[in-house]
């Protein structure tokens, strides 16, 4: 999938004047591919809806304290008065009420709404940071491999093979399990977040790396790279000034599509019990607790739906972004 000069507008530049004929007095600002993509994206209702939800979720994450203040429940407060001590379940089944929109958790009666809202912070924060990390690693190594080729490429490609040969989830869990409580000057949830970001980021970089490498390989064959070199440009110039601007689009697309994958990854790790430290709420963690109380539907439903909606929104937006930036891949 080459993201390059659009096939859309080619020879018949609609309003491009004949060569040599000056147009008006002022300079005409060209429409960059980004601008064109944005126009295209704006037309894609579904993608925009996805984008809207993403923005909404980000706002929810940022303003979580404010939202929970309005609803009046903080995520870690027990409401054991709402729990039947014998069954450990909320009285009346779910405990849903005006105060507790999504009901309360069995056993300790924490407000599920507040926890779901707070859970978005963990999910999004980790997914974003991990994606950034894998983009940095993946893009750097991908460009280096694609651009320099030879044994550098062989080495990096083989490394990616090794990574892909690992049972990564198992590996991630194992790694999350063996790292001590305090390390690298971090401790507590700070360390956990850093650790999860590190694990997820390191595990998913080959995904970006492969794409960037492929793109770089094909870009390297494009004549503008030769042109720059024949002008005397050095490798850094070519990488940063010539290649990178062309790599931004694919990196952006795949980063956007990697975020939902990483959200799922984080949720899976939390579900398997190697995620963030309690009582901090995370969606995967809530689901794993809900598994113990599988008879009460609301406990699993809300965090599950939160993951689903978030991932779906990112996927919709990412798909739209890809279609907009890469008209060839358009459906």
């Amino acid at each position, binding site marked *: 999938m080459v993201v390059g000069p659009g096939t859309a507008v080619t020879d018949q530049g609609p309003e491009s004047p004949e060569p040599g004929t000056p147009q008006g007095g002022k300079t005409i600002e060209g429409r960059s591919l980004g601008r064109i993509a944005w126009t295209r994206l704006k037309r894609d209702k579904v993608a925009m809806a996805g984008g809207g939800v993403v923005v909404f979720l980000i706002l929810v994450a940022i303003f979580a304290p404010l939202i929970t203040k309005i609803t009046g429940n903080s995520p*870690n*407060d*027990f409401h*054991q008065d709402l*729990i039947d*001590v*014998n*069954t*450990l*379940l909320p009285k009346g089944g779910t405990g849903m009420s005006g105060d507790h929109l999504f009901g309360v958790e*069995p*056993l*300790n009666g924490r407000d599920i709404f507040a926890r779901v809202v707070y859970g978005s912070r963990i999910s999004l924060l980790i997914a974003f940071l991990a994606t950034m990390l894998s983009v940095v690693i993946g893009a750097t190594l991908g460009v280096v491999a694609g651009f320099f080729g030879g044994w550098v490429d062989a080495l990096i490609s083989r490394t990616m093979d090794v990574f892909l040969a690992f049972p990564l989830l198992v590996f991630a869990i194992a790694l999350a*399990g063996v790292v001590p*409580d*305090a390390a690298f000057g971090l401790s*507590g949830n700070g360390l956990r977040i850093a650790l999860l970001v590190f694990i997820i980021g390191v595990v998913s970089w080959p995904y970006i790396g492969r794409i960037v490498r492929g793109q770089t390989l094909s870009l390297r064959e494009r004549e503008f790279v030769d042109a720059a070199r024949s002008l005397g440009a050095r490798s850094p110039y070519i990488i940063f000034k010539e290649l990178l601007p062309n790599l931004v689009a694919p990196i952006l697309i795949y980063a956007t599509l990697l975020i939902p994958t990483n959200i799922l990854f984080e949720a899976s790790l939390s579900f398997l*019990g190697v995620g963030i*430290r*309690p*009582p901090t709420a995370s969606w995967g963690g809530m689901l794993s*607790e809900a598994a*113990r*109380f*599988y*008879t*009460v539907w609301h406990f699993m439903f809300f965090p599950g739906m939160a993951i689903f909606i978030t991932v779906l929104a990112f996927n919709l937006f990412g798909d739209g972004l890809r279609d907009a930036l890469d008209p060839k891949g358009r459906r």
Partner: protein
Amino acid sequence: ACGGNDDSNGNETTTKAEFNAALTKVFNPSDKKGGTIRMANAGDWDTLDPGETYYGYSWDFLRLYGRSLVMFKPAPGKGSNELVPDLAESLGTPSDGGKTWTYKIRKGVKYEDGTEVKAADVKYAVLRSTDKETFPNGPAYFEAFLNLPDGYKGPYKSKGMNTDQAISTPDDYTIVFHLKQAFGGFDYMAQLSQTVPVPEAKDTGAKYKEHVISSGPYMFDQNNLGKNFSLKRNPNWDASTDPNRKALPDRYEVALNVNADDIDNRLISGDLDVDVVGTGVQPAALGRVVGDPALKAQTDNPVLARLWYTSINPTVAPLDNIECRKAVLYAEDRTGYQTAYGGPLAGGDIATTLLPPAIPGYQKFDLYPAGPDNKGDLAKAKEALTKCGQPNGFATNMAYRAERPKEKATAEALQQSLARVGIKLTLKPYPQGDYFSAYAGNPPFVVKNKLGLLTNGWGADWNDGFGFLSQMVDSRVIRETGGSSNTSVRIPEVDTMLDQAIVETDADKRNAMWGAIDKRVMEEAVIMPGIDAKSLMIRPKNLTNVFISEAYGMYDYLSLGVA
């Protein structure tokens, strides 16, 4: 003989299916023989080897295929705490002030292959269990108390070494234990599965668990480690040598590593008879069982000799100040703690002492009353904080086992209740595999990571003050390299009291001393007692002779029959 009161007529019966019907009475008594009892275990069996197994349910079950010198009486309720002779003709005879214990072995007891059980087999069994390189997980009482020769490493490595100074067998039916120091409760040790005879010729060391030679009424039919095993009748078992066992069913089938929720569902539907681990239903089934009167009538709710508690670590500031520790105790919301642990049915009763009521010597007292609603006495807590010099509270950390949802919930509950007086808890989950060795039981780690509160739990190896307290409050079991289960009690006075109690052969005096130790430890406020564990168990639908053995805190597996 060791129970405080003597209501162990033991054979009250009932057929009325109601809540707790099998708690103190025999439910559905019957002598009908035949049938198969189906059991399931949510995890793996620790080991079937009598020399190493260290779980209550395993000991309960093991009596089906092994006979120890002494055993707990198969009787409902308190009666089960009574020790009765099994392989031995009578309880042990102490001499030398409790340093030497002699047992006479019954004649005519045979292994599954028809050979007779001799005193030497018991001796061999006990000695092999002291080889901790081969059996690292087993109880370590014998090597601690027996007067073994220096450098003795068990019968495998120290082959041929004379061990008569520790155990002597003057004849084939007499076995004499020689202890390093007097120990009044040695009969409790003699009931350990480690005294189940093992024929030396058939011993395969660590592999013996694959085929244990039965000396009881049942022997192994199939044994697929990690999956399932079954027992069938041992043709060489002679009921006349065995007054304790009814041996009603023809077969026992045990499935391992079964999904815990699935076990509950199958128990409810009657597809399964016994959840062999005996820790009660899972939270998912709890609501269902308790919410349905018909189902609830099919349950029993015994109290276990197990305390879930929180250690308050005096080696971490500001908890090195007793007032701060008291503040923690006062601020605790006891009902919150209880609910988090599973509520009054599946969790347990609120405890105010170390000793559970089931342990002889238990004395009821409450040094840090928590107000009428049991939600804590915040005024007292604040007062204590002020005395401690931390009027606005302080921050500390709390450790628990990451894999245990109940401990997590409890820690969260405590975090909530302590926050009311400004004590801020940060929760620290650690993997349970290394919890004691590397984390909560590792003193330097505890200090370095400022773990003020440590989630902990202790169950007696047998229902007696020594079995309960010795590993829990003796400061000498604390090791700098980690691994100790006592994590916070370092009171020299208590150590002395323990030494005195151990050598006391008079049971009543001994029991009074355990109660005093309990109180002394509570005064130091280094343990927050939490709850005395209870479990809600689904009573086997199809079985007869069902009753709870208090000694094991679960159904007595020896007496069950099939309707």
